[in-house]
């Protein structure tokens, strides 16, 4: 298992009805990286996420997770190594918030009975995502932002284990959706904290300043193709953003290792 990269994506394409959603993407993701995926609507971000989650198999190419094709993993072993937060998850039955969060522990025990350590960890996540007053509420009665926090807590509950965070991956597809600023920051605090402990994070973001501020590496997609891939500070420049988003943006350097994106003056 001595692979050099956590995730190796080798000329991966995904086709639906003869049109490419993802086209010939190749990149490697290092252990312990914090990777943001940015790109305009319909650029293939979510499909790339589904491919690297193992949810769909690529039409062409290979995706290796820990040196083994992601679609050949035993799904339960895989579930202990990588967690995924998808976009918006409606539920038809009124499960409680607590039920949903503890479902994150399914890969470790199929009966749904948590030991005290697991329980402690779930409570830590409940605190982190400010869900303490909601745990007995039904998921279906929550607002969009509250539901998002519950799903986040569930995803992070899945990736935790006493063997640490090394060689583990969490994939978050637009995790800041519906979150207010306080909860966005709480989420990023947790991401940074776990990333420092070795967890690899792949995160789809729309807010470019989030991507610049938090991620180490950035994947920029357009029209299903990988346009730019590299360290966040290098990839975020006015030229690249113009090419990707077709918008005039200014990138200011705040200091040596931080930049910020602002709108250019627009005359209305």
């Amino acid at each position, binding site marked *: 298992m001595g692979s050099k990269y956590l995730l190796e994506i080798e000329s991966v394409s995904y086709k639906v009805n003869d049109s490419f959603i993802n086209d010939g993407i190749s990149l490697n993701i290092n252990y312990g990286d914090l990777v943001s995926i940015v790109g305009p609507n319909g650029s293939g971000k979510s499909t790339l996420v589904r491919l690297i989650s193992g*949810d769909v198999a690529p039409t062409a190419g290979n995706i290796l997770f820990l040196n083994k094709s992601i679609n050949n993993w035993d*799904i339960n072993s895989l*579930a202990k190594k990588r967690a*995924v937060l*998808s976009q918006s*998850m409606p539920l038809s039955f009124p*499960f409680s918030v607590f039920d949903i969060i503890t479902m*994150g522990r*399914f890969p470790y025990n199929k009966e749904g009975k948590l030991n005290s350590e697991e329980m402690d960890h779930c409570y830590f996540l409940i605190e982190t995502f400010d869900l303490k007053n909601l745990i007995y509420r039904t998921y279906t009665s929550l607002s969009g932002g509250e539901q998002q926090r519950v799903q986040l807590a569930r995803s992070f509950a*899945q990736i935790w284990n006493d063997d640490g965070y090394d060689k583990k991956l969490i994939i978050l597809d637009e995790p800041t959706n519906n979150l207010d600023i306080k909860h966005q920051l709480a989420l990023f605090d947790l991401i940074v904290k776990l990333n420092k402990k070795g967890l690899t994070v792949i995160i789809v973001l729309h807010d470019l300043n989030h991507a610049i501020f938090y991620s180490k590496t950035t994947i920029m997609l357009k029209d299903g193709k990988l346009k730019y891939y590299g360290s966040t500070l290098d990839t975020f420049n006015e030229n690249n953003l113009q090419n990707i988003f077709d918008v005039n943006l200014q990138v200011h350097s705040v200091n040596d290792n931080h930049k910020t994106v602002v709108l250019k003056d627009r005359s209305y």
Partner: protein
Amino acid sequence: MMFDKKVFFLLLAIIFVVMFFTTAFLGPLKISLIEMIGIVSSKMGFSGVLGIDHPSMVKEAVFWNIRLPRVFLGILVGIALGTSGAILQGLFRNPLVDPGFIGVSSGAALAALLVIMFSGLFNHLITPSLLLYVMPVCAMIGSIITTLLVFKISVMENKTNIMMMLLSGIAINALVGSIIGLLVFSSDDQQLRSFTFWTLGGLDRASWEVVGIASTFILLPLFSIYSLGNPLDIFMLGDSESSFLGLDVEALKRKIILFSALMVGVSVAFCGMIGFVGLVTPHLVRLFIGPSHKFLVPGSALLGAIILLCSDLLSRVIVAPAQLPIGIITSSLGSPFFIYLLISQKKKVKYGF
């Protein structure tokens, strides 16, 4: 209106026992507890236990050969309909699913009717006692096919399209209705009566042999279904989401389709189509103890049995000594409940909870 789960199950168990004895005693011919002990003990080979006189032969025959198998068959069918309703609602991730609406029961009925039609042609090959086995197996196959069909038609991108589901159910029900209509058209008075059995259901074909076959087909899957409780809860998150958590989604779906088809198939083969039990039962259980399938499945099995016992009792008592088809009772009570469900769903959509 949430109950403590232990209290809920204890209450159900008490009601179940009470209903069991009530349905066994009551009917056109009343049988007392003492007489019941007398009959059962003499059947076990101890006559005159506790100084109980042996009751009349008629009472013994009625109780042992008619009443008791009927009660047991009612319990089994109630378990089958309640449980299959619960797991099918899970499969479709939709609380409005009933084996009757989506054509699973009609699929089974269609297969059973075809067996009857063809066994008439080959009556030198298929003896009545062989038919007792052939019918549930064919009905089971019929319900597997219809479940698969409806599931394939109505599930799109991990979500059940309710309209597609109900419309495909309507199509299958219409097909079966037309075949039954054809049979009715070409049948005499005597046969006519037996067709109402298929559309409205009844427990009057009960015998010990039937109970034996039904319990094999119903109780065996039941034990496997209990272990599906937690996986089903996970499955509620969605196809992709639950497989991200390590759930083998396709295997779970296959099991649900197979088990519910087994249960519905055998119920329909022996008791015709009994509507609404599969819809109402899980819903009531959810109302009391929440949606977790770990408790919903056993709760629906128990409550399904109680509902069937109550309905059977009503069907025997209301027009005694004649009997109403049991489906008249379940449908007449179940359809107003369904309308209530629809209205409350509408409110949920409107207010977002």
